């Protein structure tokens, strides 16, 4: 399954050369001198992408010294940029990779100047220090919900302050040396410079919102400043699916979020993915799982979410696109990742079953043409405590 336009090729020969896809052709002989992996009878997909995680920014969620996704003090609002914290040695990355995830958007959750949260990044999940795929991939904001108290006390205040920030940023000129920031502005110089750069670059605006009214406000704001819009969560996005499609907005949704859990999510439903896709909205997935799946199980949970969306009416090929080429386009990396098109990074997974079944697992994972280890801290614990050791007289610490 090539990831592009729902393409499926049976009995395919996939040729990877110099780290990129060279060709995908039915029944073709392997090139001379190539290393051959026999995947007969098995499904092969591009490496998958989760569209909203904190990968690289967290180790143990309850330990603040291992969390880098929230700027809790200081002047950083929109200017907060998670790229400088990315930890390529995070133990979560091999787990995601062993589940077939080779790319992930990673996002901020809080800044000192809400509703802006700061800027997120895209990771490539591969061994070594070159984890950052794309910095400043989107500017994040969060509106409504249970955080209104911290964000101006009203949804109106949130939207007015965001609009004011953009208005200030639009006319902002970087100060000449020695000159201070313009007077009487709400945004400090760090944040206004970041927003100014965002408007100049047409960086996507990623708004975490659930209620229809907020989603419509987000569309209007993005439209006024001609910014690409990404709706995160979007429990009620289905209520304005046609509007989102008309504005080419994308929705990153959680197919498991079918409860009216808060007053913002009263319209939550199981078949949101199918309804949005049918209306022509570009969708991608992120699964919270009580926040536990979000990063720690970012690979298996995204697949499970996609499978659940299929169970609720999303066509299978579109579910696979929502795990590959859709998030690649949304976050601006489709020029090098997202399908098996010639010249794109050879991120590839050979599956032992249906990739949208969470019980399935990869047999082989490639990132940028390099085969990845599937050893994780969890598989080491598994091997150390496997039942065949039950009679060992030496403690487990003596095992590998």
């Amino acid at each position, binding site marked *: 399954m090539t990831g592009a336009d729902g393409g499926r090729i049976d009995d395919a020969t996939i040729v990877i050369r110099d780290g990129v896809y060279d060709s995908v052709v039915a029944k073709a002989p392997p090139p001379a001198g190539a290393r051959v992996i026999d995947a007969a009878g098995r499904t092969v997909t591009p490496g998958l992408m989760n569209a909203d995680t904190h990968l690289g920014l967290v*180790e*143990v*969620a*309850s*330990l603040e010294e291992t969390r880098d996704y929230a700027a809790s003090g200081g002047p950083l609002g929109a200017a907060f940029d998670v790229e400088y914290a990315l930890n390529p040695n995070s133990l*979560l990355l091999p787990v995601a990779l062993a589940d077939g995830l080779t790319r992930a958007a990673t996002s901020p959750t809080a800044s000192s100047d809400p509703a802006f949260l700061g800027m997120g990044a895209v990771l490539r999940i591969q061994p070594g220090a070159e984890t950052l795929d794309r910095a400043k991939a989107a500017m994040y904001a969060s509106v409504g919900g*249970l955080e209104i*108290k911290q964000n101006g006390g009203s949804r109106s205040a949130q939207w007015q302050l965001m609009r004011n920030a953009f208005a200030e940023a639009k006319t902002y000129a970087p100060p000449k040396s020695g000159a201070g920031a313009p007077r009487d502005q709400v945004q400090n110089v760090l944040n206004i410079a970041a927003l100014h750069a965002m408007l100049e670059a047409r960086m996507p605006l990623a708004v975490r919102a659930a209620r229809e009214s907020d989603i419509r406000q987000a569309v209007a704001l993005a439209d006024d400043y001609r910014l690409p819009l990404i709706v995160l969560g979007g429990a009620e996005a289905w*209520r304005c699916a046609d509007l989102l499609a008309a504005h080419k907005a994308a929705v990153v949704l959680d197919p*498991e*979020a*079918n*409860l*009216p*859990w*808060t*007053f913002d999510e*009263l*319209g939550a*439903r199981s*078949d949101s993915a199918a*309804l949005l896709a049918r209306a022509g909205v570009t969708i991608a997935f992120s699964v*919270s*799982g*009580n*926040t*536990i799946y979000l990063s*720690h*199980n970012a690979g*298996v949970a995204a697949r*499970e979410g996609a*499978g*659940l969306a*299929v*169970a609720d009416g999303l066509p299978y090929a579109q579910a696979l696109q929502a795990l590959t080429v859709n998030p690649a386009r949304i976050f601006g990396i489709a020029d090098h990742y997202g399908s098996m098109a010639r010249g794109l990074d050879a991120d590839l997974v050979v599956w032992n079953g249906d990739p*949208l*079944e*969470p*019980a*399935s*697992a990869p047999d082989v994972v490639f990132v940028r043409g390099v085969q990845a280890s599937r050893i994780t801290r*969890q598989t080491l*614990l*598994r091997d150390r*405590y*496997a*039942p065949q050791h*039950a009679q060992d007289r030496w403690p*487990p610490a003596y095992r590998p």
Partner: protein
Amino acid sequence: MKLAALLLVFALGAPLAQAGARDDEGKSHVARGRGGAGNALPWKRDPFPSTYRPLPRQDTLIVGATVLDGAGHRFEHANLLLRDGKIVALSTRAIPEPAGATTIDAKGRWVTPGIIDVHSHDGDFAAPFTSLDAENSDVSEGSDPITPNVWAEHSIAVQDPSFARARAGGVTTLQILPGSSNLIGGRSVVLKNVPATTVQAMKFPGAPYGVKFACGENPKYTYGEKGRFPSSRMGNVAGMRAAFIEAAEYRSKWLDYVAGHGKRPDDDLKKDTLAGILDGDIRTHWHCYRADDMATLFDVAKEAHFHIDAFHHAVEAYKIPQLFVANHTCAVVWSDWWGYKMEAFDGIRENAAFVDAAGACVTMHSDSPWLGQRLTLEAGKALAAGRRAGLAIAPEHAITWVTLNPAKVLGLDAQTGSLEAGKNADVVVWSGDPFSVYTKADQVFIDGALVYDRADPKRQPRSDFELGEPSMAK
């Protein structure tokens, strides 16, 4: 969702007596349980009796299904007869359709017992979660670390839409637990997953109560942060031991009193619950993660003479499976939760399979209104991890992790949990393999009543809370 909301722990689950007689003082007395000393013992009372009545039901014959019976067997092209709310027959031979019965053609579909979730907060950590709940949730009594006097049933919001979502996922029985902030969090309640306007009308008649305990991080951080006891793991254990010492003394005084010695002790709601545990009437459910924490608690239980029915979460159960076997304790686990807190750092996906392979009881649980809609998928993920580790696990075995084993954990395996003749007709007809992500519950029966039908909007009950929303039409 706040992390704290995810770290809930349950406590109790012990046998409840049926409605008791009332004396002139209005106190209900129940002559049940091992105490034998009878109806004067305060912890034998049943002040909030079940008023559950089965919903209108029809005898039903399900034909041609792949059946996982919950007792470890698999039958192909099997037929199942439900009559008067009970399982009457399960056979691969034809069963004549009784007069007046409804026949369901289940060819190509799968049938299992109703799913049982032994760790739910539906109703006591209810949707909608509001800003006021964020301040003071109904799931934990936050004023003291030792609250065996509180009962989860007094927090239940019966209009929580989570019950209906769980029902659509095949869940017919739930244990609702208090949260895990406290060393002793309070009594659980076991519910039939039927729509109702009172919690009493959902209570599983005769189900033992349980008590929720918590070890490890939650109690020590909850109270240590406030400068209160306990602020350490050793404080946690000291608090539990002291509570049981006091309860044993209280129980002795009451037993002396009913034997005609001494004056009548004062009633004590806290000690009543723990005395019920010491009597064996009330079951114990322990929120614990680490192997060393759980091993310590096994010793505490021996010292204080009670039984640990289940460790919940138990992410390191795979390190000490032999202790679960030796203590006849069930490991109540997730398939893959890990890493969200320090004591969950060593979670592995083979946890259920490794504990099962050692011969101990394993049960999957949710602790989440989302995961609680997919417990068979949880079992399927745990099964798959075990197979990848080289263990042979059959579907008819893995289904016991969400049916008969949780029934045993609740002390209800004589009534539900398998499709054996005489048991309650708690049954799910699945659209396909229940371990698949694509499978839905087509029909759900509780005591023989069709409480949910995926094909019939009239059998898809909605809570009051969900009324009045603008059109949900597609």
